[in-house]
């Protein structure tokens, strides 16, 4: 049996709020670069990026394969092209619009088997020169070369020929109840070339010849032929479907790696570094992490950010401060990097260490939620509830101004309850917020596990679009009040 699994997607189950995550983190921009317009690549990438499950082992398995692919990119591109073209050609050439006409199905499907046998031959040819080192690609090549050889291809072609160009049907049959014909078994046509066997066959056979005017009889003959062919039609169709599945699976699994080749080329072109992430349950570290979707839309190298957090079970990164300071860009870049990392890909940074391969979920304020209304708040809370239903220990939640659809006093209470609960449940939180009560109470209460980030401002007031660690200054406002009130006019 041909076995290969370049992706190890497992059940391949998507995360519950996949569409929100895709939009919030601008995944389409990244996927656009990786796919270069190839639908299959885009589909596979979204599937891998938004998968619910991911283990460290799988991450390492794919990282190894990605490295291998970047070394053997021309072989991988050829394989992908053969797999995709084989599938698409057969798909175009074979018409099976109804399953109740066996002789028609037999003819079409035999044609398809012939086409795919040709592509298998081409694939075999490419593989004979492949020099893969990763476990994923080694076992693919081994399984294919072990199971598909010249004999197999020759036989498949022969079958295709018999059904496309053979004449008549030959079958064994028994007599069942009501003296009807039962259990037809289609037989391999007998060699009738030798004169001796031909004479023997003639001698011991009974022949019925249809009267040329017997139109009903001709229809019945067709009816019987179709009946005899129905089983073989199913068998052939199944064989064809198996081949098609093989080509589709292969193309799909390869498409992920072709996307990796494309993204790597893109980063190289902009001079953005690539690094293969590590996991360390005690750390979240990144050095010069580049916001990827921003790079795609601006086609330039954007301002990178760095962060170093000690993790004790879980952590919260709280971001606050003036608008236009790069907060949301930061949040997106972290989310994108985490998704690429857990997909087994490289990330656009110089160094990237994450504490777990948990899922990444988002809860971004929607524009329409920016007004205060309990109706809106209820909707927002309902949406957050869906996010929470998808959460597990070790996951990451990226929140952008959550609970801003009601006044900050009550929103702070909600936020404090929610974020404390997440943190204490082992969920990692990134939260952009302006909720002052929340900031003060939450950050001071959880100082050991919380990092507060604010946009950097140089002493001359210039914005750098970097975030730096900040601190809560209790009594600052009063102080400010006093300061301003007591200042001489």
């Amino acid at each position, binding site marked *: 049996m041909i076995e290969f699994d370049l992706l190890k997607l497992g059940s391949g189950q998507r995360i519950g709020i996949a569409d929100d995550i895709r939009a919030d983190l601008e995944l389409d921009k990244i996927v656009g670069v990786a796919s270069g317009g190839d639908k299959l690549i885009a589909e596979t990438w979204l599937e891998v990026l938004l998968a619910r499950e991911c283990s460290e082992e799988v991450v390492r398995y794919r990282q190894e394969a990605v490295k291998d692919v970047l070394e053997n990119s021309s072989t991988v591109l050829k394989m992908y092209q053969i797999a995709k073209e084989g599938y698409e050609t057969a798909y175009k050439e074979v018409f099976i619009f109804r399953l109740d006409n066996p002789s028609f199905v037999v003819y079409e499907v035999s044609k398809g088997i012939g086409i795919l046998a040709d592509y298998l031959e081409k694939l075999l040819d490419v593989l004979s020169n492949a020099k893969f080192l990763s476990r994923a690609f080694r076992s693919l090549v081994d399984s294919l070369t072990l199971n598909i050889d010249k004999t197999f291809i020759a036989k498949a072609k022969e079958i295709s020929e018999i059904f496309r160009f053979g004449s008549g049907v030959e079958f064994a049959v028994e007599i069942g*109840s009501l*003296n009807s014909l039962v259990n037809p078994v*289609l037989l391999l046509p007998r060699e009738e070339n030798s004169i001796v066997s031909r004479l023997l*066959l003639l001698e011991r056979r009974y022949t019925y010849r*249809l009267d040329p005017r017997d139109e009903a009889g001709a229809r019945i*003959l067709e009816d019987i032929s179709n009946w005899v062919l*129905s089983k073989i039609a199913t068998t052939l169709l199944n064989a064809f479907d198996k081949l098609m599945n093989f080509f589709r699976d292969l193309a799909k699994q390869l498409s992920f790696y072709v996307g990796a080749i494309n993204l790597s080329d893109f980063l190289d072109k902009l001079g953005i570094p690539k690094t293969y992430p590590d996991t360390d349950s005690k750390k979240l570290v990144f050095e010069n992490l580049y916001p990827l979707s921003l790079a795609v839309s601006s086609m330039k190298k954007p301002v990178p950010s760095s962060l170093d957090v000690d993790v004790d079970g879980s952590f919260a990164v709280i971001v606050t401060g003036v608008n236009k300071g790069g907060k949301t860009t930061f949040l997106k870049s972290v989310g994108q990097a985490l998704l690429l990392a857990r997909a087994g890909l490289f990330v656009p940074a110089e160094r990237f260490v994450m504490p777990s391969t948990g899922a990444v979920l988002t809860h971004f304020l929607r524009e329409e939620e920016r007004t205060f209304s309990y109706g809106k708040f209820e909707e927002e809370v309902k949406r957050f509830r869906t996010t929470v239903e998808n959460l597990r220990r070790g996951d990451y939640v990226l929140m952008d101004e959550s609970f801003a659809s009601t006044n900050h006093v009550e929103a702070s209470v909600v936020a404090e309850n929610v974020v404390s609960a997440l943190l204490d449940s082992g969920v990692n939180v990134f939260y952009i917020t302006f909720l002052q009560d929340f900031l003060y109470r939450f950050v001071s209460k959880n100082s050991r596990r919380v990092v507060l980030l604010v946009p950097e401002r140089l002493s001359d007031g210039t914005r750098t679009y970097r975030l730096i660690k900040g601190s809560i200054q209790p009594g600052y406002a009063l102080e400010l009040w006093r300061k301003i009130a007591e200042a001489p006019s």
Partner: protein
Amino acid sequence: MLSYRSILGSRGTRADEQVLYDLRIRELVSEVLGRERDELLWNLFLEPVDSVDVAVYRLNVFRDMMREDIYAVVDEFVERIREARDYLEMEKDAYEPHKLGLHLDAALTYIDALEKFYSKLSSLGVESEGLKSFLRYVEGIIQSQSFKAMKESALEAKRARDRIRIRVRIAGDRIHVWRFDRGEDMAKMIEELFARFRGGEMREVRYIPVGSGLSHIHAAILEGAFKFFKSEYEAMKRFYEGFPKIVDDGVASFVREVRFYLLYIKFMKSLMNQGYRFVIPKFTNDGRIDVRGFYSVLLTKKGRVVPNDIFTDGSKRIFVVTGMNGGGKTTFATSFGQVAYLAKLGVPVPAENAELLFFTKVMTAYPVREDPRESLSRLEQDVVRAVNIMRRADSSTIVIANELFSTTTSDEGYQLARIFLEELSRRRSYGVFVTFIPGVASLDFVISLVAQPSPEDPAKPSYKILPGSPPSEYMAVRIASRYGLTYRDLRERIR
């Protein structure tokens, strides 16, 4: 050999057309029989039996057949025998090679059906005389020499047929047939070749042959086969010629008649699955009627039906039903009439419990539609019917009367009703009399039943009919009071 005794006991007598119409019996029977058009079955349901013994005989068969296991065995038997007879029917127009097969399979099906029926039913402990006697009859057939000989010959013919295997080639306008020797199974070969690829979802090519498989082409292939399998052909031929008659006449009659039970039980089950009850009625001989939870089968299609009770120890025999409009009075009378009718057919009745007389006569008097061509007025017709009924009624008669005498003043109507009911009472007949005239309910020899309003909303009916006096306060008055149109309210208001 025994002769067949009908599973129906004996036939009854066709009911009066007017009764069938008034009690909506034809509608009921068409519910029971569905699309079945068998004339015998229709007739059976329109023929109440004349003696209590026949009714009890049938009800005992029902008691057996209402057991799931027995029902299943009988139902399967009927299907198999019909199948055998279908083959014999097809045989008439078939080509010779097919005749041999159809005849053989008719016999094989028949033999198997009979043997299975006998062995299964014997182990189930049937109690009714009807099924017991048929079982003895079947036993007689199975043990007969002729049956044994037929079976032996049929099995030999079948074994012969099973040995036949040929190779056929269809090419152009020719069919070639050989005795099968060897050959490679293409399907198997292809399956093996592609086993190395993972399977996905299986698609199946389905082909339903257009023809019957009994055509002249098929016959030609069989002819070819028989050329190579001569002794096998002889065995089939021997059976065909040796045993021209397959199905016993008694068995054929049973299969036809027993569907009376099968179809009625199927109908019962469809209602019982919705929570409705059916019960085997018990016939009383002390004048008592005690029917609990009976309901209108015809209304079950339209929604939940409210069941009602009716009781008398036999001293008073006339029920007078009064009460609010649309309160279910007519339904009550009609469905009780149906219960009495069905009991007389010897079938289970739609109720929780049913103890009643085996009425010798069921008579009805429902309002007739005014027909301008009819020379008599409606009142006249009512009186004519009442008098006819009165004359024929006796102590085992039930009369269902609905709004009789309503086309005159209520005082006159009361008088007519009193006379009619007094006479019925004197004859010790039973009656259900639906009327709007409250006075009738106060006659001292009647049992007064009243259609009750809904406890939640007194303006709506509850469809419960309970013993009691007609209400002193009418619904219309109660509704008026809600709008302050009572004496006191008006007096207080109009000061």
